[in-house]
């Protein structure tokens, strides 16, 4: 299949995914179960990565600020801007595309090759909607909360790294964090909007690859890899398009 056939089939799948669930009660239960397994379970990894990345961003900024004309609070300002604009929404989404994406593709792919999806269809269940809608909605709606947590922890990481290494004081860092916030708060809305789009991509694309897996366990592995690659590429392309549309 060429790229355009994949894209066409992907949108065809989305049409089936977003159809009315067979039973609202079952859907609600699955939705909250997915919020827990996809979103809440990702928080420890995201927290760990965010603290360390925040530290690295601030240390690298401090190390590259050779000019005495630049005020010291610029370090905090740059850490905040980098975190909100790119690190938390994009890098965290890319990392989660690996974690969540491979999980979804292999879960759905295994269901396909072991005929569990056929069993759902025979019973009269819309298998695409049943399997994917709770995952897609849970991630799309709740990933922004994870990203907000990541942003906060990134700034904490930057503060800890800078202060303990003696590169700047807490006061200077806080001045940088708060600098030009009134003008820049739009960045936060931009970041959260694109996080929702990324959340949609990192669940729907692996779902697609898993659903159309053919063969056995080897193909499930291949689907999982393809899903992670495709969703990472989709995130980067979407990031560029959204930046052009919203920010420029």
């Amino acid at each position, binding site marked *: 299949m060429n790229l355009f056939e994949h894209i066409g089939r992907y949108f065809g799948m989305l049409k089936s995914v977003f159809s009315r669930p067979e039973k609202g009660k079952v859907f609600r239960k699955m939705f909250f179960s997915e919020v827990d397994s996809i979103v809440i379970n990702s928080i420890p990894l995201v927290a760990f990565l965010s603290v360390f990345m925040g530290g690295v961003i601030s240390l690298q900024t401090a190390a590259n600020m050779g000019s005495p004309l630049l005020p010291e609070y610029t370090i905090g300002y740059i850490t905040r801007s980098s975190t909100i604009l790119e690190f938390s929404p994009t890098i965290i989404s890319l990392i989660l595309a690996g974690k969540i994406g491979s999980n979804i593709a292999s879960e759905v792919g295994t269901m396909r090759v072991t005929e*569990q999806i056929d*069993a759902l269809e*025979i*019973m009269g269940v819309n298998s695409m909607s049943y399997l994917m809608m709770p995952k897609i909605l849970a991630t799309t709606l709740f990933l922004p909360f994870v990203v907000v947590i990541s942003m906060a922890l990134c700034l904490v990481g930057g503060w800890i790294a800078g202060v303990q290494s003696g590169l700047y004081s807490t006061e200077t860092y806080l001045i940088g964090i708060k600098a030009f916030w009134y003008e820049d708060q739009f960045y936060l809305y931009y970041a959260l909007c694109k996080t929702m789009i990324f959340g949609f991509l990192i669940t729907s694309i692996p779902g697609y690859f898993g659903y159309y897996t053919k063969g056995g366990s080897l193909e499930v592995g291949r689907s999982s890899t393809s899903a992670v690659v495709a969703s990472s590429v989709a995130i980067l392309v979407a990031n560029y398009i959204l930046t052009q549309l919203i920010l420029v």
Partner: protein
Amino acid sequence: MIEVTNISKSFGDTQILFDIDAKFTEGQVNLIIGASGQGKSVLTKCIVGLHEVDEGGAVLYDGRDFSAMNRSERIEIRKEIGMLFQGSALFDSLTVEENVAFPLKMFTDMSNEEMRERANFCLNRVDIIDKNELLPAECSGGMQKRIAIARAIAMNPKYLFCDEPNSGLDPKTSILIDNLIKEITYEYNMTTVVITHDMNSVMEIGDHIIFINQGRKWWQGNNKEIIRTDNKQVVEFVYASSFMKNLREKLING
């Protein structure tokens, strides 16, 4: 009754099924037999709608043209179908009881208590007792098949499909599964369609047998007629081993 008329199926340039006509009667165990790769599973998937039949073919469930229906109309018929898959196809993440109660949860307004009662009734019917909280991976192959039968009958289906129910099972468990399918078919007056390679099943439960060869219906009859048939392909398939050949000769010669 399920009636299929002029069923052909192609995948790209490769034609798998050629103009198959068949009737599967209610209250009988209908077998589809044939060597591997001859189109038995494709035929069954066409009948249950997992594959679309080529133009000109029709699948009628008690006169209702399933192949001409849209998705929502098909769902109503699918609620009347139970299917036992070759690999059982139990949902890995659900317990035994949850697997059996799954169709009830999706399509009925039963309370949790009623669903549990019905699930336990179906599990007892297939002799699965006190295993409700196990996961499918914790059950043996034979148990998984029986749980899958319990799930298939949970909604009181009118039509039951079994795709190689004996594959991977020891002879004793195979006989148990065969007898279970037979008993359930007679008890609930279902239209049962079984795909099998197992000659023991053919002899034990074959009320009506269709032999598929090279994508075509080659022969039909019952488990008594298959002993005396002189159809070359059927004889070569059913009596492939010398033991079976000798057995046939003894049966024919009384």
